[in-house]
């Protein structure tokens, strides 16, 4: 019958559904890319080399042609969304649209680069994307563990920082990377234990507690850094580092192999954790309980789940994960410096929200943010006219758009941030 049909569409925001709105935006972006980037691109070949340098096999395309072509592909994806396609195509088409836009942009930038640097070494780009995304992955996973069980974790920054600090300190004192790694995990767990006790036992506002704990972590690590590490760097701030572990067979895959499988323990650990937490969250008893506590603690309690104990456990596990993430700095890349996390914890929070509170979503969001970060470095190196500061804003702006409901809808676990009082 026609009448209820109409009634349903009327409720569903009429013609301008979310899909159509998104489609219109993507169409506009694609056309903009085809016209603007196409006009700005030069006739130089844009080379995307499958190595770390200019040489070797490469994907090539004429700059102008590429910019217009990929722009049109993005526009086509947008047009398809606007025309009204089944819902299951939404993510795919949106992805095609965004990737097309980015490729069009890259064709312009690479072809317009000074002569001799009209190439983009993809191995470098992929590797650095993962390196830059690594703390975000660990941080966002810490967020998933906390928030899925109903405790808001704004203290990711502090957990990463404390992990980095105690990894460096105890790694240096003991001279062992493994002691450093364990100490880093415990350092992160220390901050999240404070979060757990004050949020769960004393019912302090969780966002407030997170903010205060971040400051506390900055203060404690900064204080001890100046008092200990600066006065005697060889004793307190010269942690050993994890070497490169090559995975046999996998390391010989072109592009992916050298970029991902000749890396250190933290990358493998991070990717493994995403899989493990994803499986645990959606396929095990613990996961079901965690999600139910995060959505409706009263119902979970009625069914015999120990709400508070589960929350304590998950928050502390989150601290362990974030602590290891902090160690991915001090036990692999740099020695500790004051406030060295520098806001990565908040980008991790953004990745968590942008990834809709799921481990795989968080991974993708973290990679996207890592790519934006790497792109800023690359564009700086080829002397692009795009200011790197605006690319650095990208993760934050993307998150604002996501939360405002412009790119799909994000919804936090229902009981996220609400203390549970039994009784």
């Amino acid at each position, binding site marked *: 019958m026609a009448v209820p049909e109409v009634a349903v569409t009327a409720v569903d925001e009429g013609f301008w559904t979310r899909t159509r709105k998104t489609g219109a935006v993507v169409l506009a972006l694609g056309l903009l890319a085809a016209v603007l980037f196409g006009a700005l691109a030069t006739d130089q070949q844009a080379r995307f080399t499958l190595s770390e340098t200019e040489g070797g096999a490469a994907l090539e395309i004429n700059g102008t042609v590429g910019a217009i072509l990929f722009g049109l592909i993005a526009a086509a994806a947008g047009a398809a969304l606007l025309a009204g396609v089944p819902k299951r195509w939404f993510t795919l088409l949106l992805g095609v649209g965004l990737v097309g836009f980015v490729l069009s942009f890259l064709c312009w930038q690479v072809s317009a680069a000074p002569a001799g640097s009209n190439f983009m070494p993809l191995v470098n780009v992929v590797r650095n994307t993962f390196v830059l995304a690594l703390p975000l992955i660990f941080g966002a996973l810490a967020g998933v563990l906390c928030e899925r069980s109903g405790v808001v974790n704004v203290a990711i920054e502090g957990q990463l920082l404390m992990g980095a600090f105690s990894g460096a300190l105890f790694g240096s004192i003991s001279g062992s990377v493994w002691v450093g790694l364990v100490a880093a995990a415990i350092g992160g767990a220390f901050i999240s234990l404070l979060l757990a006790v004050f949020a769960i036992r004393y019912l302090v506002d969780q966002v407030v507690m997170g903010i205060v704990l971040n400051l506390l972590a900055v*203060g404690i690590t900064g204080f001890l850094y100046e008092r200990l590490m600066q006065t005697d760097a060889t004793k307190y701030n010269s942690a050993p580092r994890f070497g490169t572990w090559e995975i046999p067979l996998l390391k010989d895959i072109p592009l992916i192999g050298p970029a991902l499988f000749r890396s250190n323990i933290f990358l493998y650990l991070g990717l493994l954790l995403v899989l493990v937490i994803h499986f645990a969250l959606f396929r095990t008893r613990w996961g079901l309980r965690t999600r139910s506590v995060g959505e409706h603690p009263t119902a979970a309690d009625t069914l015999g789940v120990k709400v508070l104990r589960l929350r304590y456990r998950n928050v502390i596990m989150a601290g362990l994960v974030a602590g290891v993430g902090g160690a991915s700095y001090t036990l692999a890349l740099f020695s500790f410096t004051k406030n060295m996390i520098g806001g990565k914890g908040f980008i991790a929070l953004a990745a968590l929200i942008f990834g809709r509170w799921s481990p795989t979503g968080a991974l993708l969001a973290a990679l996207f943010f890592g790519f934006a970060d790497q792109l800023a470095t690359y564009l700086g190196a080829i002397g692009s006219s795009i200011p790197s500061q605006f690319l650095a804003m990208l993760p*934050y702006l993307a998150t*604002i758009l996501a939360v405002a409901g412009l790119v799909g809808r994000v919804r936090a676990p229902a009981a996220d941030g609400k203390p549970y009082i039994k009784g």
Partner: protein
Amino acid sequence: MSNPNPVSGSPDKEPATEAQEARSEARANPTAPAGDSERAVAATATKEPPAEPRPSLGRLFLDNLWAANTVTVTVLAVLLAMLVGAVLIIVSDPAVLATYGYITARPSDAINSSWTVVSEAYANLFKGAIFDPEASGFTAALSPISETLTYTAPLVFTGLSVALAFRGGLFNIGAQGQATIGVILAAAAGFALPLPPGVHLLVALIAGAAGGAIWGFIPGILKARTGAHEVINTIMLNYVAVYFLSWIIIQNGVQNPRRADAISKPVEASAQLPRLLGDNLRVHAGILLAVLATWFVAWLLNRSTLGFELRAVGANPDAARTAGISVTKTFVLVMVIAGVLAGLGGSNMVLGSTADALTPQVVAQIGFDGILVALLGRVKPWGVLMAALLFGALQAGGNRMQSYSGISLELVTVLQALIVIFIAAPALVKAIFQLRAARAARLQTSLAKGW
């Protein structure tokens, strides 16, 4: 709409918890009349008449001295924080730590050396913040107070910004970003506009306020229109503001042409806040503006229609909507006013004596510290002023502690964070010191709402 009840908002009650308490009262006491919660929502709750005859004032004072009231808990929280700070000072001093190696043989060594290092550090903290007994002369004697007030002024503004938003049921983590945009516009007006003294200062302040207002408006309108959580958006906007600042500093026309590093042209003297006690002391008119702002926010919250609506929305948006208050309009207005306050706080950083040009660190941490100040001040305007004074004093004293005792300034950050942690969990302080339950005020700073 005019406020029917001029004495709305029981001053003794923790404002941030009005709604919370109303709800928990209703839960704990199901037999209470249902009108109870509405009464609290409208913030017209009257105190129950005392059942027994009023005890003498002295008796009351003694009773309350060791009870979990605001003042006692605050003082004890500061003491606890300083105790933890002392432990940090001791464990981070290898020479002192070495004496603990033979503590069983000669305990006096460990105790004496610990006492020396800790007492010297805290003595310098006091001398740098309040008064140095060895100082001679007018300038030297007033210097600590001047420093304290200089650090206090911007914190009052950002603290008020966060507190005002709290009262309206919003958590403004974006004071940092609002102050950043504020400082950019204030500085731009300060070095770009050729205006006579007085007018120039006024224009620069208005520009700073406008910058904060814009940055407050965005999360406000997003919250009102789409329901996007202001905590997330303000966090993100903080970083957008930081990157915008680092971009704009190095643009032509903004960057100081004589410098290679990231620093803007200096603000002209005509746009600077006048110094109050001569050129050798840094205290400037910003502190007077801060007191004025405190008075204004107090008036706004407790005496104006907007303030009444704001508190009603903060206590219970659904009830407020039912009563005919536009919740969305209130959200936007609250965030804009909060942005104005934070923007003025940012302006203080470049128009006052702290700096006269934009640098990437020009706003320091005033936005994040503002959150702590607001919580410490129990989200009441005059409380915020007091809390900002304490934080300003810690900052000023911390500088002296760093240069005289070699104790890193970061200790101040630790102390500030710890004080607020203890304040936020009064139950902990109460348990540690075995305090009596307070008669009137229930101490609970829980504002939990989630995303």
